[in-house]
């Protein structure tokens, strides 16, 4: 059965189906990437570097319906989000609730959102955040494969604590 040569029509159809599947596959990956990409928004209430806007005395901002964050002048806070478009509800002290929408570029992990700029409508309000060189967090030494016995090439099994999670 599997040894016979399929005729050319079947072959092209098969090729077409395979190409379609590949396209669907690639499309799905792009889709979930787009929908699932996580970002950290650093919300900033400071004087702009170039002096275009001044910090606002006190405000509170809620990102995508999360807990509102209070920021006085000169303060920063961060919010973790998922996806590309976000809704910011900013309430200036003694002022109105203003809703602003921002989009975030896909490829960046951390972004700086200057709230004063955003409220004033000065572009760009969202910029890439370049962190200072932070020391890598401390962790356990090298690799975990420190076997105790020198002639233990194949390690068949369960060292006692490899187990299903304690509650």
């Amino acid at each position: 059965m599997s040894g016979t040569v399929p005729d050319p029509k079947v072959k092209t159809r098969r090729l077409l189906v395979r190409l379609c599947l590949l396209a669907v596959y690639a499309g799905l990956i792009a889709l979930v990437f787009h929908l699932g990409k996580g970002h950290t928004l650093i919300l900033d209430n400071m004087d702009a570097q170039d002096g275009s806007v001044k910090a606002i005395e006190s405000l509170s901002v809620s990102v995508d319906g999360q807990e509102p964050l209070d920021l006085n002048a000169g303060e920063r806070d961060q919010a973790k989000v998922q996806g590309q478009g976000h809704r910011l509800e900013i309430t200036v002290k003694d002022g109105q609730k203003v809703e602003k929408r921002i989009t975030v570029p896909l490829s960046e992990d951390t972004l700086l959102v200057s709230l004063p700029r955003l409220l004033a409508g000065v572009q760009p309000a969202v910029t890439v955040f370049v962190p200072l060189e932070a020391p890598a967090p401390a962790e356990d030494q090298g690799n975990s494969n420190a076997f105790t016995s020198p002639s233990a090439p194949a390690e068949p099994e369960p060292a006692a604590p490899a187990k299903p999670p304690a509650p």
Partner: protein
Amino acid sequence: MRGRASVNSLRQFGADFGWPRIIIFFFLVALFFAAPLVGVRVDASLSDVFNRFGQNAFFVLALVPMIQSGCGLNFGLSLGIIAGLLGATLSVQLGLHGAAGFFGALALSSPFAIVFGWLYGKLLNKVKGEEMTIAMYVGFAGVMFMCIMWLLLPYTAPDMIWGYAGKGLRTTISVENYWIHILNDFLAVKVGPFFRFPTGEILFAALGAYLMWLFLRTKTGTAMTAVGSNPDYARASGISVDRMRTISVVISTALGAVGIIVYQQSFGFIQLYNAPLAMPFTAIAAILIGGASVKKATMLHVVVGTFLFQGLLTMTPSVINSWLQTDMSEVVRIVVSNGIIIYALTRKTKVSK
């Protein structure tokens, strides 16, 4: 004409001797040549290889009876190892030193080895055809059971038990004060500061191989081989297939016990708890690379296999580590030893001499 004949005879030689053995042999030689180039001392490495050869020879030897009798690869060698551990711990408990300690350990482990082997053999007889997987899990279950036992058994020697708890055996117990290197040092030959040939150990291994060779030529031994290669013929000749298989399992288990004690005197530590889990696999890899198959094994397979395998296991990590300046020994070991077993398992059962 002549050219073709010599190519054919070369191929025949290769098939007879087994291509994998040849390839590995040349690879090993290449490693020895590469060693000094990356800063690894050849004499130290050779010394290491000989040491490990003697250390592991008995484990590999232990596999022979069961292969010959048709029980397959003894993945349950852990049971024999446990018997040996019991003997060794008892020997330390009783405070036996030196030769008395070593031979005492051997003697003390024998009743356990025989009982374990006998029960294990009876079990395997009931499951002909599926021995290997069952052997593996029986071995594992046994090791786990012993893990519980090591914590509960009433050992009291202070060298062996946990300090603050006051009871339960430690994971590794040093035999430094008892019988470390008792074989290795016997008639050892030292050449320079890095090379020491463990004569005693090698002699002991040679003795074991010789005895096995003799045994296979006795009436019982040939009956055992007959049972493995042609059970119907054996049965027709009046041989009890079950009895021969049980005997082979008992011998295998006993040799496993001897093996771990020899290993411990060379390595310097008694390793309990999870340690026996890995050991059958190294022995199996060794004998398979020596050219044995699931159905046939000879002394040549044991010697060549152990040497090549231990050589590989010693040289490959040390050369690669020195070369790449990084410690990849574990990964290399895993890939090499398991790769060999897989290769052997996937061969057609044409066996080399």
